[in-house]
């Protein structure tokens, strides 16, 4: 188990979703909204192209917490705000700072950034230590 201390950073998580990731995640999650898997459709509705599923990006925020805390059972709560759009084939960096520790729990403030823009902000995680 990680020993998290207030004001410390959790280990940064970096991942570059490959070209076909949105197809695999659509199958895994059941979310086949064409904005994620059909380039032509995405452009037709005014997007730059296929965009990432917000809940896939939230899963990266969750993974940064469970890896920092020592496993899936430690993540007790996660809230996020989706902003902007994530796209395939560009690195995403998840970084978090421990806000407070007490009563066997830690609260971690986290963001996910891609190309210098926050695509998830104000993420707040509660970890059981």
């Amino acid at each position, binding site marked *: 188990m990680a020993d998290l201390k207030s004001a410390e950073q959790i280990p940064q998580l970096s991942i570059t979703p490959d070209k076909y990731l949105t197809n695999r995640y659509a199958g895994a999650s059941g*979310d086949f909204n064409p904005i994620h898997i059909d380039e032509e459709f995405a452009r037709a509705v005014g997007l730059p192209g296929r965009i990432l599923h917000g809940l896939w990006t939230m899963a990266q925020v*969750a993974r940064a917490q469970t890896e920092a805390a020592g496993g899936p059972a430690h993540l007790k709560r996660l809230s996020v705000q989706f902003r902007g759009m994530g796209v395939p084939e560009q690195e995403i960096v998840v970084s978090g700072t421990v806000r407070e520790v007490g009563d066997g729990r830690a609260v971690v403030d986290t963001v996910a950034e891609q190309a210098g823009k926050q695509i998830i902000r104000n993420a707040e995680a509660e970890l059981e230590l």
Partner: protein
Amino acid sequence: MPVNKQAIGKTYDPVVYAVGREKIKEYARAVGETNPLHLDVDAAREAGYADVVAPPMFAVVYSAPAVGPPIFDPEIELNFAMMVHGSQEFQWGPVVVAGDEITTTASVKDISEADGRGYYVFESISINQRGEQVCRGTWTNIVRGV
């Protein structure tokens, strides 16, 4: 056109999802999990679990069949074409493992309007076969141009 708030408090029929081992592994690989608890049944059993453990965000898989119907409920009049996922919260209880049966009940928590946007907040409560609450989800969808 003002948002229709009639449906606030409406609860939908519970939906049962049977959690499969290969589905957990497929999901875990799609989100980049490397923890063997999600991918290797022997590792999961050595750690004291009955089968592979679902990553926390697997909640979207077992709750999805329950949270779809409210989004498309004609009584709510949610304009899906203009909808974006604004925010999301999950609170977790005991972990979910392959072989669990999860029953999820969705409800309309709130519908409001601000600055020409409609805010539609749905809640999902997921219970395992032992009656333990494994997850509570709060799904906030924003509809532009209401």
